């Protein structure tokens, strides 16, 4: 292992642990690079995204528009039935068409929340703090690929992730798994205990009850029971990991324990609208056994107890510490580094602030050769930071990230975005990064000297080859584009 000198350490602090250096940042970090990072760790968590509404507000709006949508459909159907022979689909829907309103709402919520996140990432002086929060948001992925979840991703980060990223892992886990964003994303809200009162009622009682309702929602078309999606992903992706020693039976038992966990709907008191609720009547009665531990009957306490035990398992520490090392340092991190993080996790009983400190204290994390290839998000954010740019409109970034394979807030699966160079350095992706660099540089460079920008962005990490190429560039824009596309800027 090569040791980094003070200048190299300052550059690594800003670019590997942080989100890329803004002009002046490397100079600021130089006096005490580790101290510069340590000062960004704080008990109260990461910065909150500005201007983001609460989950319950968003979900309330969403439900309201869904209702309007349904009413409009029924109205159309009634019109069609009344005027047989006439095509009820004729006639353009007007601007107040609820279908369109819901679509627009979604785009606005996802767009403005993501904009707030980019704004914070581009401007913050505490890049490591934000980078650390981004890691946890990806670890606990929720995605706008599901419409209702899309409206609450910003609120999810603010309410469940950001306050807890330097606190106890158990608290973070509890907040995340009971948040409406996760409950909707992984289908928990409709999961009902097959032997619960609610299931009995839906199977038998509903047939006898109000004929009018039965006609709107025929009971035979509604299946009632378990959905094991959230239970499985908590085990596989959020805690012990795939090799963590659980079986299919554990997944099913955990899913039974979590039944009742849902979000407030139109029939709940107004205070519960869009908030996480526990429905005793939908909870599967009885004791549960998950990974060899028996949990006595007891409503929502069962879920809490299981989550607590999962958070404390050594396999959870190993799985997540490996992931942290892989994210911040290398696709194949050294055992020594993972071991240090695990030791900090163990001795602090899952205090994530202590784990973050262990990361920045680990000599393996300061290896001068950059091993991490930036994700598209990291590349775009660090480009803005390098240019010291303040774009007026962050929504322009969305189509660029989509083209690079990282559509805002929309990972394709609950595993989140990949972490490895192999995934992101495909030939097509490199060409698209180059196209972005070209367009971005022409737009932002103005009269700035790309040689200075290169020195400010990379410090001691700037190689002679890149420095020479930037100096020889034909135009300022070409120089900046070369900097952004240089091997060392593409990595961290």
């Amino acid at each position, binding site marked *: 292992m090569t040791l980094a000198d003070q200048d190299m350490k300052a550059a690594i602090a800003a670019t590997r642990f942080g989100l890329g250096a803004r002009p002046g940042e490397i100079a600021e970090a130089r006096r005490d690079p580790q101290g510069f990072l340590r000062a960004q760790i704080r008990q109260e968590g990461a910065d909150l995204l500005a201007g983001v509404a609460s989950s319950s507000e968003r979900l309330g709006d969403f439900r309201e528009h869904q209702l309007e949508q349904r009413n409009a459909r029924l109205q159309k159907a009634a019109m069609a039935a009344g005027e047989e022979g006439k095509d009820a689909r004729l006639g353009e829907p007007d601007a107040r068409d609820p279908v369109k309103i819901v679509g627009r709402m979604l785009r606005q919520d996802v767009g403005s929340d993501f904009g707030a996140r980019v704004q914070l990432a581009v401007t913050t002086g505490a890049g490591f703090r934000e980078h650390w929060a981004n890691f946890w948001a990806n670890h606990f992925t929720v995605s706008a690929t599901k419409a209702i979840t899309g409206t609450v991703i910003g609120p999810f980060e603010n309410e469940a992730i950001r306050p807890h990223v330097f606190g106890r892992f158990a608290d973070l886990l509890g907040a995340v798994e009971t948040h409406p964003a996760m409950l909707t994303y992984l289908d928990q809200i409709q999961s009902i205990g097959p032997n619960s009162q609610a299931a009995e009622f839906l199977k038998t009682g509903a047939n006898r009850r109000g004929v009018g309702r039965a006609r709107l929602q025929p009971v035979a078309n509604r299946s009632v029971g378990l959905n094991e999606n959230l239970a499985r992903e908590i085990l596989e992706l959020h805690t012990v990991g795939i090799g963590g020693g659980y079986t299919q039976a554990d997944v099913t038992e955990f899913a039974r324990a979590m039944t009742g966990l849902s979000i407030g709907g139109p029939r709940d008191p107004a205070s519960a609208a869009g908030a996480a609720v526990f429905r005793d009547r939908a909870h599967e009665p009885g004791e549960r056994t998950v990974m060899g531990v028996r949990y006595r009957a007891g409503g929502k306490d069962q879920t809490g107890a299981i989550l607590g035990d999962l958070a404390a398992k050594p396999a959870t520490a190993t799985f997540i510490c490996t992931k942290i090392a892989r994210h911040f340092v290398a696709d194949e991190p050294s055992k020594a580094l993972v071991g240090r993080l695990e030791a900090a996790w163990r001795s602090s009983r899952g205090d994530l602030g202590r784990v973050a400190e262990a990361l920045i204290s680990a000599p393996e994390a300061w290896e001068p050769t950059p091993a991490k290839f930036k994700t598209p998000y990291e590349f775009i954010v660090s480009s803005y930071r390098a240019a010291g740019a303040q774009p007026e409109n962050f929504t322009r970034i969305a189509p660029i990230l989509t083209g690079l*394979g990282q559509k805002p807030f929309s990972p394709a699966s609950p595993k989140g975005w990949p972490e490895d160079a192999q995934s992101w350095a*495909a*030939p097509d992706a490199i060409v698209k990064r180059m196209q972005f660099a070209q367009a971005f540089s022409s737009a932002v460079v103005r009269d700035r000297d790309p040689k200075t920008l290169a020195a400010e962005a990379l410090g001691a990490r700037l190689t002679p080859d890149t420095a020479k190429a930037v100096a020889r560039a034909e135009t300022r824009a070409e120089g900046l584009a070369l900097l952004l596309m*240089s091997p060392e800027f593409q990595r961290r």
Partner: protein
Amino acid sequence: MNAPMITSRRGVLVGAASFGLSLQLLALPAVAADADLAKRKVIVVICRGGMDGLSVAPPVGDPEYRGLRGALALNGTALPLDGTFGLHPALTSVQALAQAGEARIAPAIATPDRARSHFEAQDVLETGAAGVYTASSGWLNRAVEALSAHRKVDALSVGPTAPLILRGKAPTASWSPGRTVDAEARLPTLLQDLYRNDPLLGPALARGLATEVMAKAAAADMGAQAPSMTAQAPATNTPQLVRQGREAARSLGVSLAGFMREPGGPQVAAISLDGFDSHANQAGLLNTRLAYMDAVLDGIHTGLGAEWKNTVVVVATEFGRTARINGTSGTDHGTASTALLLSGALKKGGIVGDWPTLKANALFENRDVAPTLDMRGLFKGVLAEHMGLDRAVLERDVFPGSAAAKPVAGLI
């Protein structure tokens, strides 16, 4: 070339059969002429998320099906296929191909993985290994590597990220729809110089730029496109967004076909379709996803034109889903699913592999469709019969440790 017997591959087979050669020998690809082999193409479509085989090809004739699937059963709406199976109503192009003998289903196929984890199962599907974390390269990449020993073979992945199935030693290209490169700009040349010692970025940029050049040529050559099989009457009540999605999907397939038709274009391609994880409200979700898939396949078929007879398309997923519906009008992670095999060179035949039925005692672990066919057997069959890959190399390098999964014979 000692004509007249080698007028076509089928001609050879008929001729050989008349000399009383064994069927085993007939399955050997060595009889195909080299020039013929050079045109052979294979496309792997990976459907991510665990595609529900019982929806792709619903076994409407299986007496247990309707009871297990309840409201999700497609008995009334499935498109006819054979006595037992139908096809999902959104798969109109696939059905048209099936009726022409150019599409078959493998209704109970699975990888060797049984953990029901998306990510583990996708790894196994793509590495072609017997278990997870035993290989870091994709089987399709190793196939390209093996084929390259005999002839020039290029591979292309569609999409902005590189799928595991095509990662490995053999260099591969990737492409996704978007703007083209300004050929006049100096930047590409300057960067190639800056990347000369970079083992990751150097080759990636070079291949990306080469693909861009090919994309332009392909776009120019495609010119007037063959009309779609399903172009007549796109239902007027299809919401506009769905219709636009279908058109985009179809043009994606047409673009991929365009690449493969170009002289010097790739003979091997992989494309991923996401979003098949149907835990809740499965009917609507699969309707959209399968319509998208059908449009991509239609685009590939029509875009390939005369090359369709040289091309095999395999559609596969990491696992199937539970036979029973769950509590939220969806299905959870299961085991065997349905794969599709499409080609202008397909041999006629029924389903590929056996149907285990949905009887209670036939279900795997009392919940999933039981696998009767190892996914690797299907892949091996295609690579051997269609691409002419040597059996020994196939077993040793492409699918090591898969001796128990015999290559499916008689497909092509």
